[in-house]
């Protein structure tokens, strides 16, 4: 059964610093998603990663995928307070009917 683990689960950091959130998953996958969730809100799609070595960037966020290591990273560059939110990774298995499984989320708090 597919399992998805994120770490850290909570991260408090200063503005201007860099940090990385890690997402490990247990079985072969062909699709990995990153979402952002603000308190009391729904999920906002950030990235969809489809292939080994895929890298996508949007502003201060960059996501990468290593399918051999079953690892995705979400890197935050020069953090700003507006990036404070909970970030989820979600993974879909290789089969068409496989479910999408979410990690527990990383609650990111950026201090001004």
């Amino acid at each position, binding site marked *: 059964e597919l399992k998805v683990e994120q770490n850290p689960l909570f991260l408090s950091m200063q503005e201007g610093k860099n940090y990385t959130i890690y997402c490990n998953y247990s079985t072969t996958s062909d699709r990995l998603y990153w979402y952002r969730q603000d308190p009391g809100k*729904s*999920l906002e799609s950030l990235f969809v990663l489809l292939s080994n070595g895929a890298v996508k960037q949007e502003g201060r966020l960059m996501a990468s995928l290593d399918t051999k290591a079953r690892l995705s990273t979400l890197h935050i560059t020069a953090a700003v307070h507006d990036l404070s939110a909970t970030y989820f990774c979600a993974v879909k298995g290789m089969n068409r009917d496989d479910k*999408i499984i*979410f990690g527990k989320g990383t609650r990111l708090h950026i201090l001004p």
Partner: protein
Amino acid sequence: DAGVTQSPTHLIKTRGQQVTLRCSPKSGHDTVSWYQQALGQGPQFIFQYYEEEERQRGNFPDRFSGHQFPNYSSELNVNALLLGDSALYLCASSSEGAGNTIYFGEGSWLTVV
């Protein structure tokens, strides 16, 4: 182009009651998935509907049931509500032929008292 719409946004029910939540997918999407998100947790997959049939199901009891209509909209029904069913219920919309992104609605906040 409307995104994924859900109703109601908030509701309060009593233990033992039944609830129906509704979802209209994004235009051009034919697949609807439902998730339960308890406070402080990640979304948990309930089930997915495609072509009016349940295609996949997560580890939820039979009290949770659903339906998809010919226009691709969907309902989630929960019978015999328990306190532990209190959560944010999210509808996700997707289509194999419309890109890889999965879009979520704003959710329905269910409180069971």
